């Protein structure tokens, strides 16, 4: 017999979908439950039913809940070896295109966007690249666009940048304020920040590279399949897909559409 929480969970997700069109129904349950338990505390609600009542009638509660349900803690150049592999193995292919499009779905607060923009600038490719940075959380997109990060995170970012094969110093790309680093706004002249849902929206452009790291881990298998099918449709022939270090297409119904390109870094190439 399921507990009350397990009964209320699908009801809440259905209500959110009907009212606001955000679709969390096929998110991985383990992380979703944790996040909702935190939301209950945050909104001081006794149960998911009580939270649902508020979500349906108070749009600002939905905005707050959205932050709870989509929060991701990312870092610049997370897994430096991934960026090194992009630089050494993928960039030579990207150079052959007269113009480039890159898609970063689930970009959250933008750490990965700036990492890729810096890498592409150092390879002389940024000027002919358009980066689509998409997310469902408008607040995260605003932060991503602002490109301002706490100064106490920068030491780790710098270290990762060097390990990732950075050609200069990370400090060349930001201005340090009192407690924050503001990233060079010319980095985002090539970036289009935009609302897009891997759960409900469709393909909007043809791209040469999709970098979607540690986003699919929040989806169940069926939603992962949907997202990867979107990537397949968005990618040009022989285009590249980069996943997180612990993500794999092994269990995906799209596995046959891709070849492993740099196996240990989870970089795939569309067949």
């Amino acid at each position: 017999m399921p507990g009350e929480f397990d009964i209320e969970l699908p009801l809440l997700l259905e209500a959110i979908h009907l009212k606001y069109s955000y679709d969390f129904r096929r998110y991985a349950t383990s992380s979703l439950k944790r996040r909702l338990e935190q939301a209950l505390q945050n909104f001081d609600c006794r149960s998911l039913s009580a939270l649902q009542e508020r979500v349906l009638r108070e749009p600002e509660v939905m905005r707050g809940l959205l932050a709870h349900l989509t929060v991701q803690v990312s870092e610049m150049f997370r897994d430096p070896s991934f960026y090194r592999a992009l630089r050494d193995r993928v960039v030579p292919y990207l150079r052959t295109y007269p113009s480039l499009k890159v898609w970063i779905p689930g970009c959250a607060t933008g750490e990965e966007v700036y990492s890729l923009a810096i890498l592409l600038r150092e390879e002389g490719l940024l000027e002919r690249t358009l980066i689509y940075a998409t997310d469902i959380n408008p607040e995260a997109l605003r932060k991503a666009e602002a490109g301002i990060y706490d100064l106490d995170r920068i030491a780790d970012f710098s270290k990762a940048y060097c390990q990732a094969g950075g050609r200069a110093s990370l400090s060349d790309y930001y201005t340090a304020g009192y407690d924050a680093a503001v990233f060079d706004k010319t980095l985002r002249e090539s970036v289009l920040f935009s609302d897009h849902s891997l759960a409900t929206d469709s393909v909007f452009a043809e791209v040469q590279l999709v970098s979607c790291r540690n986003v699919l881990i929040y989806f169940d298998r069926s939603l992962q399949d949907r997202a990867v099918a979107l990537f397949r449709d968005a990618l040009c022939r022989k285009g590249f897909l980069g996943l997180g270090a612990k993500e794999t297409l092994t269990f995906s119904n799209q596995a046959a559409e891709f070849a492993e390109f740099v196996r240990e870094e989870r970089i795939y190439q569309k067949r």
Partner: protein
Amino acid sequence: MGTVMPPVQWQAPEAILVGGSAGAIEVVSLLLEALPADFAPPVVVLIHLPRHRPSALDGALRGKCRLALREPVDKEPLARSTVYLAPPGYHLLMDPGPSFALSVDEPVNFSRPSIDVLFESAADVLGPRCAGVLVSGANPDGAHGLHAIQEAGGAVVIQDPEEAAQGAMPAAALALCPNALVLSAKGICRWVQQLSAWQTPNRRSAT
């Protein structure tokens, strides 16, 4: 110390979860060394590690363990006779299946991976069909998770805080789970060893 047999109504665990922090690697390598090659239940090991030394655990355990040993990837189903090491930098959780799930949510108890996160999600998915073991560590992560396993009907074991290299973690767990079985490192090895014997109904009826 005599052998501690599981209670008669014991259900074979679908997973054995082992958590620890400072001083845990020694206990866990002793445990993994003690497991025979045909030990059936999957063993999931989560030890807090320094962020930038991800290979420390793997290096310490590989070669001693007769079972397959690896870090799980997202959505990987739990397999028999396999030891899984929680990858550094991610929370490790369990989804229905059971299969592994990962997240990069905020650290819990200043830890990612956090033992509470793993144990609580395992308790939720497996209920009484999981066993939790908490060993040496200098912080209280894992206490709530072990309590959740106990509440769900799973077996819980704590390393004797007096014996543990760092007693804070087992002591915090013992405060929340006063009825937990308290064992020495060697006792934990023996206790886990016999869980495999309860795996198949045939063997159970034979005893």
